[in-house]
């Protein structure tokens, strides 16, 4: 006997109870949050849906339901007007789901009655075009690009390492970039700090970088922090960001950023440069080693010349800055293997990459199980007051 659509709906309505919009809204309002499965098509879901609902198109319901709900769990099905959800209810009942109901009037009635609803975050047409080479990579895709747009990176220093790192992170569409630098652009910076320009000599480096980033990618919000990081401002600063990219040239800041990375459990991307050589690593708090596991103590000042004293090959900064940017992007996306547990050494003169193993130090005074981590006077510590004799004989 042939049965019409209306016949099917009528019989479904007898077997699958209906929930009214007002009742569901009241339950959600009181903190009772039953699972709502939206069985509409992708395009309908994309135009808006009930916040917190799970999307399983009706065509995939049988194959996907096991990953979403247990048969003994309460399930409220929803569609556009409350018909497809009734028919989907029959399917779930056949699969052994006892506590299935259908939202009467569906999403349309939900919306019309003034309940809250959301539109999923999507890339705009311009963004799809701008980031198309990212979107083509399966490990990134549209979801990954949205993650980058939602990520916040803090760069300590907008100089040799920070300039190329910030430039490429901005191009990649990292949504928020913070630049900490109290210095101004100098003509001697332009040999390597490619985010700055000749006509911006004298401008704060963060401000100068902001000009370049805004011209490159309007998707990026740039926060300029034109001061020095200190133990007094660093926690507030870091807590607004997902990741720290440390490209400073001095040990007090290196150790300060390592300690604050642990205190706030913020991943720290590290690189340093001198002449033809670069070091890079990634420190994931309490997951891998920290900077102090690698270098428990800073060298005395005479063993630690800065690039201002010893020089640096300009292009080396591009390589190392972009290794940092690469590590940051991978960490933001949660893909690949980072340099956690490894120190990468790049020798530009030999054109060799050497990798050293970095282990977590069980007695590390910063991240070990017995560590009592607190800020210290980093300047005094790094000036080597406590080992004056060693410095004097060196």
């Amino acid at each position, binding site marked *: 006997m042939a049965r019409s659509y209306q016949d099917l709906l009528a019989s479904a309505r007898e077997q699958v109870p209906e929930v009214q919009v007002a009742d569901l809204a009241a339950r959600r309002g009181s903190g009772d949050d039953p699972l709502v499965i939206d069985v509409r098509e992708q395009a309908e879901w994309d135009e808006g849906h009930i916040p917190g609902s799970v999307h399983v198109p009706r065509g995939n319901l049988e194959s996907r339901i096991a990953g979403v709900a247990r048969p003994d769990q309460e399930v409220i099905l929803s569609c556009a007007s409350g018909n497809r959800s009734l028919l989907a209810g029959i399917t779930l009942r056949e699969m052994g789901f006892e506590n299935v109901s259908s939202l009467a009037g569906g999403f349309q009635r939900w919306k019309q009655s003034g309940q809250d609803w959301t539109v999923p975050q999507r890339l705009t047409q311009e963004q799809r075009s701008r980031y198309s080479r990212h979107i083509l990579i399966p490990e990134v895709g549209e979801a990954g690009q949205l993650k980058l747009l939602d990520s916040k990176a803090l760069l*300590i*220093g*907008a*100089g*040799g*390492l*920070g300039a190329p790192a910030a430039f490429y992170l901005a191009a990649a569409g990292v949504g928020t970039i913070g630049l*900490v*630098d*109290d*210095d101004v652009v100098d003509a001697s910076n332009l040999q390597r700090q490619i985010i700055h320009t000749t006509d911006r000599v004298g401008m704060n*480096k963060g401000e100068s970088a902001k000009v370049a980033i805004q011209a490159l990618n309007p998707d990026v919000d740039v926060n300029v922090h034109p001061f*020095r*990081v200190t133990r007094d401002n660093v926690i507030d600063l870091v807590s607004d960001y997902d990741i720290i990219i440390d*490209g*400073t*040239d*001095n*040990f*007090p*800041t*290196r150790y300060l950023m390592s300690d604050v990375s642990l205190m706030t459990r913020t991943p720290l991307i590290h*690189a*340093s*440069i*001198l*002449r*033809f*050589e670069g*070091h890079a690593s990634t420190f994931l708090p309490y997951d891998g080693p920290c900077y102090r596991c*690698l*270098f*428990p*103590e*800073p*060298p*005395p000042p005479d*063993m*630690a*010349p*800065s*690039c*201002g004293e*010893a020089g*640096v090959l300009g292009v080396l900064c591009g390589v190392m800055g972009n290794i940092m940017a690469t590590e940051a992007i991978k960490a933001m996306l949660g893909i690949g293997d980072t340099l956690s547990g490894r*120190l990468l*050494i790049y020798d530009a*003169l*030999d054109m060799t990459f*050497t*990798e*050293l*193993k*970095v*282990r977590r130090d069980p007695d590390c005074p910063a991240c070990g199980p017995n560590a009592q981590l607190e800020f210290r006077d980093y*300047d005094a510590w790094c000036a080597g007051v406590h080992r004056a*004799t*060693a410095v004097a*004989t*060196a």
Partner: protein
Amino acid sequence: MSVVRIPPVLRAATGGEREVQVDGGTVADVLDALYERHPAVRTQLQTPEGDLHKFVNVYLNDEDVRLMSWLDTEVTDGDTLLILPAMAGGAAAAR
């Protein structure tokens, strides 16, 4: 013969040499041979008591000798000993 790789900050003490080939059966022997060739390196790496400074890491191939047998770690022909002081270079900005 094993190879000792000299970091940029120590090259003034080795007359600019980037790699030094020396003999030695342990890390201590290799370092002694290095000091004999380039005496100025000794004070950069060692305390007056003869220990390595804490801010200097030494790797035998890719492994920190602190996690092996320290200065007694055996070195065989063809091994590379890498001296690694911490390096801070980057932006001269935040402090």
